[in-house]
């Protein structure tokens, strides 16, 4: 019992550490928030006129897509944090201390989820400002936010695993670049139906697409959504967590090899 209490206390200390990082770099924090808002505004005004969305306008379609895309960016932040700690020896210091091993990771996840909520809030505010809204009532909207955060959690576990596997700084760059095609090869901005066959197939199966389609459904926003999108939006992240969580734990243990 006391072990559990300490694990929670240690996790909270690690969460505070990450929140302090953000408080120490307020400019960085604002830039990160503005970045997703800027993506939203840019696509909305650049493509808004050219896009024809059945049963609604492009803004209504776009906002859930950008919300989901922003959740995917979590992979990069986590990856960078984990690999930096391993490289700098901070992870070793944690491992040599009498703290709960789980706290290192869970504390960071908690901090990042707070980050995700902040990002969602900023985007929702921007979305409301450009004319987006949810049409199916608050409970459905909350369910949609829940799905978005679930996708974020899956991305965090992928980030942890990749951070433990690929430790060199160049890998950070590579990942940053790779996140973009992952984001665009989805239904976040356009219908996969308009893409060449095989790209469209990838985009259809992209976990990001499942979450975007399901949130559109829940918000009552227009989309080209498949039928099983909510089921997929739960299934994909759960599957990713089921794969990457044990892999990451195993990797962490293997640090002592």
């Amino acid at each position, binding site marked *: 019992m006391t072990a559990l209490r300490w694990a929670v206390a240690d996790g909270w200390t690690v969460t505070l*550490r990450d929140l302090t990082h953000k408080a*120490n770099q307020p400019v960085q924090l604002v830039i990160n928030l503005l970045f997703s808002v800027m993506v939203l505004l840019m696509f909305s005004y650049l493509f808004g006129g050219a896009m024809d969305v059945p049963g609604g306008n492009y803004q209504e379609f776009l906002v859930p897509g950008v919300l989901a895309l922003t959740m995917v960016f979590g992979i990069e932040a986590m990856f960078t944090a984990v690999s930096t700690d391993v490289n700098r020896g901070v992870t070793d*210091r944690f*491992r040599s201390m009498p703290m709960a091993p789980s706290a290192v990771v869970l504390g960071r996840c908690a901090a990042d989820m707070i980050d995700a909520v902040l990002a969602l809030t900023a985007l929702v505010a921007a979305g409301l400002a450009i004319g987006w809204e949810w049409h199916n009532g608050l409970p459905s909207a909350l369910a949609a936010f829940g799905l978005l955060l679930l996708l974020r959690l899956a991305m965090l576990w992928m980030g942890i695993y990749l951070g433990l596997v690929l430790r060199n700084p160049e890998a950070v760059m590579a990942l940053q670049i790779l996140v973009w095609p992952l984001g665009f090869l989805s239904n976040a901005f356009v219908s996969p139906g308009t893409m060449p066959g095989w790209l469209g197939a990838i985009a259809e199966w992209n976990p990001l697409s499942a979450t975007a389609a399901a949130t559109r459904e829940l918000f009552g926003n227009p989309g080209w959504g498949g039928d099983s999108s909510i089921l997929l939006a739960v299934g994909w992240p759960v599957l990713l967590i089921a794969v990457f969580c044990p892999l990451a734990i195993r990797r962490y243990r293997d640090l*002592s090899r």
Partner: protein
Amino acid sequence: MPAPAVVAENLRKRYGETQALDGLDLTVAPGAVHGLLGPNGAGKTTAVRVLTTLLRPDSGHASVAGCDVLRQPADVRQKIGLVGQNAAVDELLSGRQNLVMFGRLYHLGVAAARRRADELLERFRLADTGGKPVSKYSGGMRRRLDLAAGLIMAPAVLFLDEPTTGLDPRGRNDVWDAVRSLAAGGTTVVLTTQYLEEADQLAGRISVIDHGRVIAEGTPDSLKRQIGADRIDVVVRHTADVPAAAALLARVAGATAETLPEQRRVSAPVRDRMAALAALVPALTAEGIDAEDVVLRRPTLDEVFLQLTDKKEVVA
């Protein structure tokens, strides 16, 4: 005899082709300062990582403060402090925030963690810069902060992996003072170093490590006696005088003298420093050898290793 603070028996660890630890044995008495002395790649860091539960050896046993590092790692972690070879501090936090965070993870209360952080910042001359982010610290400041983090809990056994590498003389003295005052307070200290002088200054006993095993062990004095202790060098003004100077030095020191003609230098080990010096200087004048410099000095690590690897397994 009290139970040893650190015991390692026949530790082995292999990385691919490299046998990083090759049957390392170590015993450290409680309250002692023990130096692990060895060149790059000797296996010092690997040994420290095994003893601090960070690394599982392929075979062998080790215990620290009475707890087995493989079977009771959590108990070991309660009793040790580690200052690794690279400063392991959070770049994005300030110095004070780092120490408070680590203090909280050692389960100090908020107030106690803050108090301890301020004490340690003061002690390591970081009080003024404690509020700045570590990314703005110099290498030496980082190193001192790292050391402070290792001392938060006044551990029973403290491991320091090359704690003074990259420090200026003043920073080095801070570390040495900290080690001495810890030792005076009863903490067992295991420190690795590449510098004979550092081991000599701090350690009561030294294990000389090479290729993953201990090749010599003893007190600094007994080791130096084994190795041939201090050396005396004569630098002559004319290269032509080198052979004569070598012969003279060999006679005075009672040992073969090495010659380095390109530096116009001859060198020999001495046992009685003052007697050798007193005999040497008048003899140089008497034989008409024009000496530029006469130096009494400690052997360099190179010389120690050359000596030790010549005659393996010295036990002093």
